[in-house]
């Protein structure tokens, strides 16, 4: 066994780390979040130039053919810096569906995604889905050659910014789920947009007699489900990695802060109870990281138990990251409950990430079912 990144990956990781350290400190991140823009277009453009957007796409489309291991490498760094730019939504989710669909539209849109010209989002989950990929009610009927979609999609991150949306609906004649590519300005697509607590934008979307040409059906039935499963596994790994990165920062920040902070005449880092809290934070981070590595390798290798490992890794990271965030807030005290300190913003992102695409409990049950089978 081996849990080291390859030489190439390390070079890449260093460049990501360096860029974010130089260009993405907390003040700058907060300036973006509190601005009227959803994210920093300059960052997007610069990282496009750095080639980041090529990473997840296969060489079929001129991409770098990165694997799940590259995904966690990226997102661990994003998690450390609380990056709000929509890499998960545009690249991993929308890009992931497009890449796996191997559709003529994939060839059309992927190069534009890689060039950083295009924002995208997936509008699959609905209010009652709770992470279960098969629990959707939106439906498509045939009208002449076209499909007409009706339904409601919930909390689609980056949808307000996306020029293209991938929308799912149940196809007629028991054909299962269909994945449609829709331009965001299409009639019948109504967005209720809002900012999110973790500094991003999202929308609830009403599909109101949304007419879609048959050519825009990217995949259907079993193929669509397997695309969704692979794509969301990768997205779940991304969230897991974000949480792992966030844990590292929170641990270090707490260690540093408690060494500085004095109460009752001593640095509070000398209080044994706080030391044990921090020890538990350290162990939580390493436990989550270890299982994340295993899951990423399983996904990369197409192992039969890859989905079970992703579910386990996500559930474990959720639990660990919340523990770490709660301890970080508790040990920082009042200051961490304010907008001014970064700690509370990590807490918010972790809380959202731990409940995105299904709760911790959902993924635990998913692990249980998958590992039993």
């Amino acid at each position, binding site marked *: 066994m081996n849990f080291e990144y390859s030489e190439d990956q390390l070079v890449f990781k260093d460049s990501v780390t360096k860029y974010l350290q130089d260009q993405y400190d907390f003040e700058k991140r907060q300036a973006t979040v509190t601005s009227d823009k959803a994210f920093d277009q300059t960052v997007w453009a610069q990282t496009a130039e750095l080639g980041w957007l090529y990473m997840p796409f296969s060489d079929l489309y001129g991409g770098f053919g990165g694997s799940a291991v590259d995904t966690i490498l990226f997102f661990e760094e994003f998690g450390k810096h609380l990056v709000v730019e929509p890499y998960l939504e545009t690249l991993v989710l929308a890009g992931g569906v497009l890449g796996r669909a191997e559709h003529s539209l994939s060839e059309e849109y992927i190069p534009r995604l890689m060039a950083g010209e295009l924002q995208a989002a997936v509008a699959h989950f609905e209010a009652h*889905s709770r992470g279960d990929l098969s629990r959707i009610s939106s439906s498509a009927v045939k009208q002449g050659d076209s499909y007409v979609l009706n339904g409601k999609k*919930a909390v689609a991150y980056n949808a307000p910014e996306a020029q293209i949306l991938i929308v799912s609906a149940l196809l007629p004649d028991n054909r299962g789920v269909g994945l449609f590519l829709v331009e965001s300005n299409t009639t019948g697509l109504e967005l209720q947009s*809002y*900012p999110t*607590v973790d500094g991003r934008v999202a929308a609830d979307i009403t599909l109101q007699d949304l007419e879609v040409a048959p050519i825009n059906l990217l995949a259907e039935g079993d193929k669509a489900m397997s695309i969704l499963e692979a794509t969301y596994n990768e997205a779940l790994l991304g969230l897991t990695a974000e949480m792992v990165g966030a844990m590292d920062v929170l641990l270090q920040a707490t260690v540093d802060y408690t060494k500085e*902070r004095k109460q009752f005449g001593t640095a509070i880092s000398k209080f044994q109870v706080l030391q044990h809290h921090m020890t538990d934070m350290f162990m939580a981070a390493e436990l989550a990281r270890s299982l994340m590595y295993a899951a990423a390798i399983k996904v990369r290798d197409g192992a039969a138990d890859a989905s079970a490992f992703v579910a386990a890794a996500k559930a474990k990271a959720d639990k660990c990251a919340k523990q770490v965030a709660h301890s970080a807030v508790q040990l920082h005290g009042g200051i961490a*409950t304010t907008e*001014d300190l970064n700690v509370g*913003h990590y807490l918010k992102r972790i809380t959202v990430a731990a409940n995105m695409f299904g709760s911790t409990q959902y993924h635990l049950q998913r692990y249980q079912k998958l590992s039993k089978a």
Partner: protein
Amino acid sequence: MDLTLSQANIAFREEVKAFLEEALTPELKRAGLYMTSVFSDFEASLVWQKILLKKGWLAPDWPVEYGGIDWTLAQKSIFLEESQKAGAPALISMAIQMLGPMLIKYGTQQQQDELLPRILSGEDIWCQGYSEPGAGSDLASLQMKAVSDGDDYILNGSKIWTSFAQHANKIFCLVRTNTEGKPQAGISFLLMDIDLPGITVDPIVSIDGEVEQCQVFFEDVRVPKGNLLGEENQGWEVAKYLLEFERGGYSYYVALNKRLKMIKQLAAEEVTVDDVAFGDDPIFANRLAELEVDKLALEFVEHRIKASLLAGGNPGALSSMTKVVGTELSQQLDELALELRGSYLSPLQNHVLSPAYQGETLGSETGISVMNGYLNNRAATIYGGTAQVQRNIIAKLVLGL
């Protein structure tokens, strides 16, 4: 041993219920229902204060001769329980519950005559200047200087976590008038207008995006010595009196019941991937039952405290544990609420929490305060002595370690 209420108290409970049903407008109820901290919407609290003043039920902790009510401890509990059940907003506590009793105990006749009626009427809104940046749970280490200058003090320093200072016209502060001896010995208690020259109020935005706390800066602020409450250097004693006065008074179970009610309602509305209401999902129901039992145990700890106080006993050991247990339990309940709220944790929709809001909500209306409540409530194990400091105190005072 006895759990029953007297006939008189049963009748009182009915009286309270009837009053609340009549007095609480939908807007006030919304202010009570969607509280995300110990505070309600400021305006709603003020409206509710005036309604209670008119009814004569505003200040149960004050003696009758000062405008209070001669309720028994049981009656106070009943009023509190029923108010929370009915969704009444919280009162602004800094003057009625905190400063009032200290004024009544330590104030001069003139201070009492002038200030107490204006507290009840809501003409004066007070805020509390105790904590300082860097002091945290170590209150006695406070640094804000009050240097004697003839008949005045000159104040320099800063106070933090000053709740509702942005709404207040008055502030009471602990200040350092002596740096010799034990830190507690050189502290004085000062009353003042908040718009004095040299005072600046900076709002602190909390992680839920709301402002409930402020930092207050003092630069060469001149305050007459006549504004002392109690003697010079007696401030620690004055502030401590409130702790004595409040001893065992706060009941966490009442607010926990309110939280549980919300969670149960949400659990009845929201559906799992197995297409059953969360309330009927065995795993969720079991986790909820476990916390409900924990709440029930705390509830009877608090009943034991009240019963002991009524009997003239000293429930000090028991009283010392309720804050830790109550706040940690409230945070565990928050976790259940988060799970129920699911993906709708994300939308930042603070305007929806306003008492006057009447529009649509994202996700079920029942759960609109879940995320803000969770974020805000992380502070519950920090303010007023962290959970760690609380445990230190129990270890020392109760267990003698």
